[in-house]
């Protein structure tokens, strides 16, 4: 048989699968094909549990470890036989909550936490990718077997990676075509499921055919086979009880948690009564798949040449006996096993990746959010398709870089152990209302970490973990040896990793659930999950307990506010003759509560929320989302209100401040009018008096001269006042022209000190300076700056009330620029006056201390504004302190 024939047959087979899938989709769409919902199709679809690892690998496993292979199928058998316990609940929840994947289940249970969704998705991708690689390898290997046997061209054998690539690409196309045809509300893929059911039949028939051929065709009946087995090396296998128990447990767990199993078991389930049939039919399928494994292995070991790969006995035995037709069938069986697993795994993973990673990212990148629903569906489809391609590409790359062979063969159990970490969060979420998001996340991460460290990473061999590290631990820490954590030795690596990871995972999950507190949505979802049977089955009447009344109260408090909700509940309880806050949830009460709630959130939501808790009506995923959204919106709204009222308070505070300032200013203005009047009239009085005296005549020369001098002085004083007023009005109007020049700060201060000291009365001001710090070149209008300095120094001279007045001038560089502080040792400015010192015409005392009308600081402030700097009063410096800030020269 040539490889060309083989390829042709494969292609025909694939085309047939396409037709089946296409037809089933059409039938389902048209509403026909009730048989698609039959329990047999469902049971057969579960058979993707048996991958190429089963089809080829089980024989190899048996050849190496005897009967141990059977544990992989005993676990699922026990789970299925006890289906009442978990599966039915899982399926019911899956339907009620429209669950799309394991990640979705965990995320949804724990308050729709996307963090958990992401964790499980990552876990699933890491756990499944090697498994996909394993399937690609098996197809490539089986093709190679034919290539070696047959005479034909080396199309198949020449380039194994190329074959794997073609297979991967073909599977991607198939999966995209039938896995993402539409966005079914409940994520069911009739075409895919039907095609998988057909493949399940093919692989069962193929394996049974090979088994029958081996037992009756080659060995001559069961008795002979028993003798062959006894004689073969298989019978020397040792029963390792630890591995036996651990692997049975592991396979049972993996059956529940593997993404592809969840997909067919829960997501694709159309009728939970199918489980009843599957509870015995699927174990039977597994039973039949395992029945001939040991005989094939024993006969293969006896008949085929030494060194033959026992993983391929299913193919090589018929080939060696010249049964090409049977070998062909066996090849198709293996091909079916591999492809069906890859297809379903890709669908399951792509759903997770697109729902929990791509979509959240996409939505957060788009500003509008999910309001444009028409668009989103398209994006989801594209995301799924791309995800499928990426998942298969991962599988292919893993196959390429792991180099195939032994490394891959062991990956099956490793993969199981990884995905098994979901179990505590899953079962805890299903049966324990106290399980919280924090507990689930911590448990998952811890379990996953231990699994990766103790099992997954060591599987890459010395490239990652050196032999020295494996025997002595990282950095010589013996208790951290990946395969003997905390010094626990003597266990098989798989068992060791499984025990530690599951123990720590479950313990942390439990512990953190106890100490953390769930969000309201989490509590709601928890009740929904744990009490799924009460919630989803409508009953006559509302005979309910206090637990629901409490949940209702919690919800009502969130919507109506604590006091009002408690009053309502208490009144209702009193009406029923009960004390406390928890009335019986009678229909009357529920109606009343609903009406109350609808006032806040609208009738539909209120109904959905009440229904969600008491389970009166089936709650759709839309209702749930609406509840979540509206709760969210309400939270946002109330936080907005909060922000608004805060803003209001701020505004009111500002208004009060402004009002205070205005009142002050008005008083100030009156005071100024008096002041300016005084300032103008005082020199005028002298001028008028002396000019009249001069006019009267009869004065001697010196007296005349003296009086004329007084008139002149007072006239100058008037002029200065008018100058100041003019200066200020010019500065305030912004019409001032600056004369920018470079100068040393020290020089400007020198000028100011000299000028301030020369003018006016003779009080001695001790000015302290640090010349070294003043050695800075500034570029500004130095005349104006000097004016500011003069003003400050003159003020200190006038107002510093210390016995020995002292002024310290301190220059420093700060982030805002150059800072010049003027601090005197007087009593400073009282706090209540600080706000006013820079206002025009404010003079802090009634004392007529010296010239000016209180315009100096107002002018200084205007100048500093013009120069791009600032002047401020510094409180708490032990005296009056003014800080002049200049913008830094670079800026």
């Amino acid at each position: 048989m040539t490889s060309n024939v083989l390829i042709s047959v494969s292609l025909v087979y694939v085309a047939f699968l396409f037709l089946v899938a296409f037809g089933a989709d059409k039938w389902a769409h048209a509403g026909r094909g009730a048989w698609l919902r039959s329990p047999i199709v469902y049971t057969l679809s579960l058979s993707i549990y048996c991958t190429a690892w089963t089809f080829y690998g089980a024989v190899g496993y048996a050849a190496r470890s005897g009967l141990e292979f059977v544990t992989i199928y005993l676990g699922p058998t026990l789970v299925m036989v006890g289906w009442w316990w978990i599966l039915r609940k899982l399926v019911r929840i899956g339907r009620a909550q429209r669950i799309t994947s394991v990640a979705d289940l965990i995320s949804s249970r724990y308050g729709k936490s996307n963090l958990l969704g992401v964790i499980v998705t990552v876990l699933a991708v890491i756990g499944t990718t090697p498994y996909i690689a394993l399937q690609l390898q098996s197809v490539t290997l089986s093709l190679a077997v034919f290539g070696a046997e047959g005479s034909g061209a080396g199309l198949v054998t020449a380039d194994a990676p190329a074959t794997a690539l073609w297979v991967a690409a073909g599977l991607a196309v198939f999966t995209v075509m039938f896995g993402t045809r539409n966005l079914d509300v409940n994520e069911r893929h009739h075409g895919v499921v039907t095609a998988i059911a057909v493949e399940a039949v093919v692989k069962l028939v193929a394996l049974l055919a090979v088994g029958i051929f081996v037992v009756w065709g080659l060995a001559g009946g069961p008795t002979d086979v028993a003798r062959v087995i006894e004689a073969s090396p298989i019978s020397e296998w040792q029963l390792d009880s630890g591995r036996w128990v651990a692997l049975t447990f592991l396979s049972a767990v993996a059956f529940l948690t593997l993404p592809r199993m969840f997909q067919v078991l829960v997501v694709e389930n159309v009728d939970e009564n199918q489980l009843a049939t599957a509870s015995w039919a699927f174990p039977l399928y597994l039973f039949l798949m395992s029945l001939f494994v040991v005989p094939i292995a024993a006969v293969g070991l006896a008949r085929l040449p030494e060194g033959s790969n026992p993983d391929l006995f299913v193919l090589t035995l018929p080939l060696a006996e010249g049964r090409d037709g049977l070998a062909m069938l066996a090849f198709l069986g293996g091909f079916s096993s591999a492809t069906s697993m890859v297809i379903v795994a890709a669908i399951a993973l792509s759903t997770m990746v697109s729902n929990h990673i791509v979509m959240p990212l996409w939505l957060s990148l788009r500003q509008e959010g999910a309001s444009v629903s028409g668009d989103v569906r398209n994006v989801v489809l594209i995301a799924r398709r791309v995800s499928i391609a990426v998942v298969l590409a991962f599988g292919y790359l893993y196959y390429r870089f792991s180099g195939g062979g032994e490394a891959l063969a062991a990956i099956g159990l490793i993969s199981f152990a990884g995905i098994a970490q979901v179990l505590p969060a899953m079962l805890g979420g299903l049966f324990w209302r106290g399980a919280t998001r924090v507990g689930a996340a911590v448990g998952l991460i811890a379990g996953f970490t231990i699994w990766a460290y103790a099992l997954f990473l060591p599987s890459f061999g010395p490239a990652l973990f050196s032999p020295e590290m494996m025997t002595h631990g990282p950095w010589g820490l013996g208790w951290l040896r990946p395969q003997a954590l905390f010094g626990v030795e003597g266990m098989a690596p798989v068992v060791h990793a499984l025990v530690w990871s599951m123990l720590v995972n479950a313990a942390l999950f439990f512990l953190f659930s106890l100490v953390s507190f769930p969000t309201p949505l989490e509590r709601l979802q928890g009740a929904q999950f744990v009490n799924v049977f009460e919630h989803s089955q409508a009953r006559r009447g509302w005979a309910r307990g206090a637990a629901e009344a409490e949940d209702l109260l919690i919800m009502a408090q969130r919507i109506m506010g604590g006091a009002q909700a408690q009053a309502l509940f208490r009144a209702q309880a009193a009406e029923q003759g009960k004390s406390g806050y928890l009335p019986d949830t009678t229909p009357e009460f529920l109606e009343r509560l609903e009406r109350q709630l609808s006032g806040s959130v609208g009738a539909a939501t209120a109904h959905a929320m009440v229904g969600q808790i008491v389970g009166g009506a089936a709650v759709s995923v839309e209702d749930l989302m609406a509840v979540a959204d509206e709760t969210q919106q309400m939270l946002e709204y109330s936080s907005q209100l909060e922000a608004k009222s805060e803003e209001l308070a701020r505004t009111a505070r500002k208004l009060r401040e402004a009002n205070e300032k205005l009142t002050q200013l008005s008083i100030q203005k009156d005071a100024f009018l008096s002041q300016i009047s005084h300032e103008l009239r005082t020199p005028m009085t002298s001028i008028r008096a002396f000019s009249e005296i001069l006019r009267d005549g009869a004065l001697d020369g010196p007296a005349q001269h003296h009086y004329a001098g007084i008139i002149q002085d007072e006239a100058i004083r008037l002029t200065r006042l008018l100058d100041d007023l003019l200066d200020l009005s010019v500065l305030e109007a912004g019409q001032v022209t600056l004369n920018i020049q470079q100068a040393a700060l020290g020089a400007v201060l020198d000028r100011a000190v000299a000028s301030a000291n020369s003018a006016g009365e003779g009080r001695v001001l001790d000015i302290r300076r640090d010349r070294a710090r003043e050695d800075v070149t500034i570029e500004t209008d130095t005349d104006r700056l000097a004016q500011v300095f003069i003003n400050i120094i003159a003020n200190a001279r006038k107002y510093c009330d210390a016995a020995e007045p002292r002024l310290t001038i301190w220059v420093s560089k700060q982030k805002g620029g150059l800072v010049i502080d003027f601090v005197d040792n007087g009593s400073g400015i009282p706090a209540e006056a600080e706000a006013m010192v820079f206002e025009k015409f404010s003079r802090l005392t009634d004392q007529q201390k010296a010239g000016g009308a209180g315009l100096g600081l107002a002018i200084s402030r205007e100048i500093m504004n013009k120069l791009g700097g600032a002047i401020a009063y510094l409180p708490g410096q032990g005296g009056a302190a003014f800080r002049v800030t200049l913008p830094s020269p670079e800026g």
Partner: protein
Amino acid sequence: MAGPREPIFLGRETYRRRRLIDAMRLLPVAGALLFLLPLLGGGATPRSTALGGIYLFVAWFGLILAAALFVRALSRAPDGVGSDPLEPEAGPVSEADESRDGPGPEGR
């Protein structure tokens, strides 16, 4: 005398179904025991792989058979396999059953 007996008869049927479900719940436990039995002998003594295999497969098949029979028996019950054994015994299930299935207490 005939009056009071009817509810007792109806109750018995419900009761039977519950016990059936109890037995089903025990099935995986029984299966686990059967599958772990080989371990009790310990791995030290050499034994026949063929016989061991036959034992396992027989036990396995027996389990499947039992499950199939239980499901069959359950599907004959008034509620079919759709009934919910996780509901509390005194819960609404029995209420619904009794009121649906005929005269009930009024028959007295």
